[in-house]
């Protein structure tokens, strides 16, 4: 139940979780950690969450993906346009790369694993506070953009947190170690230090995950985070200018596309049997499902032929963007990514 103390509207928080124990633990913890400055509401289903969203109009929703009747992705995707100002955080019990990609594509601003310790709860609470404090840039027309890598690094440093940001594209690309708000180490495959930090910021098309802090094998950075982020931004702009002028270039061992990734324009997730689990703006779901099933069958039959291991994804290059199909053991995922805006 919400407390009677006067609460600012931007401190109204909704927690949505199908497990009553989780709801109770998190709501109690967040109330205590906020010293009753948060008005915490809870919902055990998507339907209940919708009612609270309509009446209370919270600033932040913390969402588990496993809900009865309608799953978290469906709720998230439907709120993307209905409640663009609502800050949305996905907090699953088990974080996987697949869940993260689908959550961010469906409109989540932050993706964190559900904490299992009091320290973990404090760390998540700190990140939620940072997100609540995060103001939209002026002139942004009321659309909340996903929190980017630079935003998250800045949030972690300003909050003097200790954490590790791990970046992925198919596999781990690198890590940024932050200790008490200072960036102390970065590694990107075979390189480390400032070169690694800057390279991680120029890569596109990947995702990142916030992990609990652990000491790095070495300390390779001692400049301020403001300097490092500024320099990374400068490098990124330089690469963008070169790309726009048609210049081709490579950065270290890997060619780099400086074109920003476009936003997802369609998402479809179905079971291996073809039952649609999530449909967000998909224009031809039946044909997409048929295509995904064909790709999955073809992938299975080709494993011994190709000797390249399992298929991670099929990318379809279109004249106006890309479509990505990911066959997984229990589900098939389709996303269409439009041209960069």
């Amino acid at each position, binding site marked *: 139940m919400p407390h009677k103390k006067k609460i600012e509207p931007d401190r109204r928080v909704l927690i949505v979780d199908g497990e009553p124990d989780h709801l109770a633990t998190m709501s109690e913890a967040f109330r205590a950690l906020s010293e009753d400055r948060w008005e915490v509401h809870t919902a055990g289903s998507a339907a209940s969450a919708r009612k609270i969203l309509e009446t209370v109009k919270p600033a932040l929703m913390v969402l588990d993906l496993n809900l009865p009747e309608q799953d978290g992705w469906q709720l998230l995707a439907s709120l993307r346009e209905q409640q663009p100002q609502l800050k949305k955080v996905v907090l699953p019990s088990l974080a996987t790369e697949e869940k993260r990609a689908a959550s961010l594509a469906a409109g989540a601003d932050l993706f964190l694993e559900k904490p299992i310790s009091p320290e973990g709860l404090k760390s998540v609470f700190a990140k939620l506070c940072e997100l609540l404090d995060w103001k939209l840039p002026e002139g942004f027309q009321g659309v909340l953009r996903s929190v980017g890598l630079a935003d998250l690094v800045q949030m972690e440093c300003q909050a003097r947190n200790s954490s590790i940001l791990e970046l992925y594209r198919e596999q781990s690309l690198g890590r940024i170690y932050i200790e008490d708000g200072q960036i102390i180490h970065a590694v990107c495959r075979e390189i480390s230090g400032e070169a690694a930090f800057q390279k991680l910021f120029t890569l596109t098309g990947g995702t990142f995950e916030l992990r609990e802090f652990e000491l790095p094998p070495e300390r390779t950075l001692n400049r301020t985070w403001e300097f490092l982020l500024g320099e990374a931004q400068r490098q990124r702009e330089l690469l963008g200018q070169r790309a726009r002028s048609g210049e081709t270039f490579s950065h270290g061992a890997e*060619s780099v596309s400086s074109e920003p990734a476009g936003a997802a324009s369609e998402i479809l997730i179905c079971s291996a049997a073809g039952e649609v689990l999530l449909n967000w703006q998909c224009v031809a779901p039946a044909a*997409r499902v*048929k*295509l995904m099933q*064909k790709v999955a069958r073809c992938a299975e039959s080709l494993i011994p032929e190709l000797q*390249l291991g399992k298929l991670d*994804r*099929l*990318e379809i290059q*279109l004249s106006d963007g890309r479509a990505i199909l990911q066959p997984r053991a229990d589900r098939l995922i389709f996303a269409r990514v439009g041209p960069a805006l």
Partner: protein
Amino acid sequence: MKPDFKTWFANVAAVPGMLACGIRRPDGKCAGYGDEKVYPAEKIEKLLKQFAGLHEPLAAAEFSPRWTTRAYEYGQLRYVSRPDKWLLLLLVSPESEAVRELDRLAEDFLTRPFK
């Protein structure tokens, strides 16, 4: 096959990290390069045929791809189809020169005036 095509294809096969590559002409004739034990010519021809089988479901899903890329654990496979029925298949090692050249090779294949 025209010498120009042969030279182009031989250059493609020579890119470091190219595990195998195959090409099918509009008349159905195929050519392939690759390790004879792992990727013999018959296998490459079979793969070209299998990927051509995806045209129908792709069209049904309203896609006209410029190319498709399959990312596997240990490599990538690029399949390019031209409107005049030429097909190209490239199998490349991850993190190799060949994987970085995929877009350029595909673009080149799409625009090169083969006969």
